């Protein structure tokens, strides 16, 4: 690789491999050397500069090559994940789990059980692609097969993306800058297009609209959640999305989940909200550190979803009355009818 790279000029390098610019961003004097070859550039770096960077010349070269190699790899197509299979191990008492559950791309599976029951261990087993080497002795298959174990430790093969209630944006950027930075890190080519698409989707999900130039840190709770979900749907490299609750305000929850499954994500949701739970195809019930059963959402339950959604909408309306300073001494008739 060095043979072919070292004879290019810096300019050629940047036009063939735009991401290479990141490597040089913290290095001095590039303007004068754009016409010089990569090899000459490295040879000419002064000892003082290397001292400032905290690296030796040889290691620096190796780091450059390794950088180029890894970045090229990021562009490679990854194995598409169509399913994950959880093969049961044992619960905290050592009782066998007797289960083999396959979850397909585009499916929503809820995880229920009291705090401390072992929900996080199950998720950790999935993320680690456990091979009977965790306390639960579970085994995880990808596409029905033993996976490539490199996914355990590689940034680009990370299986699980996580969205939880206490996550916030901390970056001092506008929505547009923020999303395009994420797109850049995925080395996409149509960054502008993807960015505006994601912002439009997030706006569809959020109750109140926001602009591309709104700072991410000033988005409301619902807007933040909407943007996080739209961004994860389109830009996260992880095939599995783990959600712990979605608060019931400022975001269209049903459409948010739909967006994720439309993008063929596997959605795992830890929730005790009946509406979210019934939107799932299945529910995994955790007890005592183990999967005690898997419930398929029945037609009858689905039917109740309609009723629950109606109740939910009423509750929201009442909350709105409260928020705008009104009285709630009278419950609107329609709600009594429902009940």
């Amino acid at each position, binding site marked *: 690789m060095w043979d072919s790279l070292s004879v290019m000029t810096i300019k050629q390098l940047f036009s063939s491999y735009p991401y290479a610019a990141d490597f040089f961003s*913290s290095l001095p004097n590039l303007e004068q050397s754009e016409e010089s070859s990569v090899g000459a550039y490295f040879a000419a770096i002064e000892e003082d500069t290397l001292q400032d960077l*905290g690296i030796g010349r040889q290691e620096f070269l190796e780091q450059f090559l390794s950088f180029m190699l*890894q970045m090229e790899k990021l562009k490679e197509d990854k194995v598409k994940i169509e399913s994950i299979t959880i093969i049961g191990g044992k619960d905290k008492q050592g009782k066998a789990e007797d289960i083999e559950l396959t979850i397909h791309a585009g499916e929503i599976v809820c995880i229920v059980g009291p705090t401390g029951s072992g929900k996080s261990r199950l998720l*950790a087993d999935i993320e680690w692609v456990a091979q009977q080497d965790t306390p639960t002795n579970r085994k995880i298959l990808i596409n029905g097969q033993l996976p490539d174990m490199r996914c355990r430790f590689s940034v680009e093969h990370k299986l699980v993306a996580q969205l939880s209630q*206490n*996550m*916030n944006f*901390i970056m001092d950027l506008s929505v547009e800058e923020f999303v395009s930075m994420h797109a850049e890190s995925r080395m996409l080519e149509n960054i502008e297009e993807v960015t505006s698409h994601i912002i439009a989707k997030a706006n569809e999900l959020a109750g109140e609209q926001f602009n591309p130039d709104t700072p991410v840190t000033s988005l409301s709770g619902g807007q933040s959640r909407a943007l996080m979900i739209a961004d994860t749907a389109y*830009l996260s490299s992880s095939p599995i999305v783990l959600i712990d609750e979605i608060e019931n305000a400022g975001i269209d929850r049903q459409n948010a989940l739909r967006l994720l499954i439309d993008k063929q994500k596997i959605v795992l949701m830890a929730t005790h909200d009946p509406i979210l739970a019934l939107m799932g195809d299945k529910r995994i019930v955790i007890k005592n550190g183990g999967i005690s059963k898997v419930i398929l959402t029945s037609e009858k339950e689905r039917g109740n979803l309609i009723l629950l959604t109606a109740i939910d909408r009423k509750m929201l309306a009442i909350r709105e009355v409260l928020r705008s300073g009104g009285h709630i001494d009278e419950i609107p008739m329609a709600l009594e009818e429902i009940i």
Partner: protein
Amino acid sequence: MQLITVAGPPSAGKTSVMLKIIETLQEETLRVGVIKFDCLSTQDQILYQKKGIEAKIGLSGNLCPDHFFVSNVQDCLLWSQKNNLDMLITESAGLCNRCSPHIRDVMAVCVIDNLSGVNTPRKVGPMLKLADIVIITKGDIVSQAEREVFAFRVKQANPSAIIVHVNGITGQGAREVGQLFKGAQSVDSLTDYHLRFSMPAATCSYCLGQTRIGQNFQMGNVRKMDLS
């Protein structure tokens, strides 16, 4: 004796994460000890000892903690051999972003947190760039997008490292890193080992206790900024 050097910016979560990792190793009946290097004071020793972890503190006072580290690490190794430990972890706060305690052929870990911002990986020197394992903490409070961008930038700064996410509070990811720690090289003596990168020459008059400001008081290794 397995030896692991851990470094990271102040408050990155080093102690929290090490406590969680060591807990999982203790379950496997490994005897792990920690030596924490800091400048002024630290309560971390108590945190470790509460968990039944042998721990010592080295306070560097007015020396650069990493310089102080190198001068003491061999003795630390002897201390842990005397205490029949299976594994010694040294923890040091990388204060100047430029020094690093990492030693060739000794497992080197850098702990860095998501809250420090996506530009930080580019700014941190050899303690990140030359680490074998980079542990990223505090992923529980930032968005998925920020986590992904941050990890990507870490990968750019150190393309060959193993990059892992650990939550210092819940311990998520700690067990997995514990498994990696078990693969650390064994070291009997550090004599003839080398630092992965030389530390900057810090021998100006201020290193030696000078406090007065002005041309007349600057001696030794002095470098001037270019303000033209």
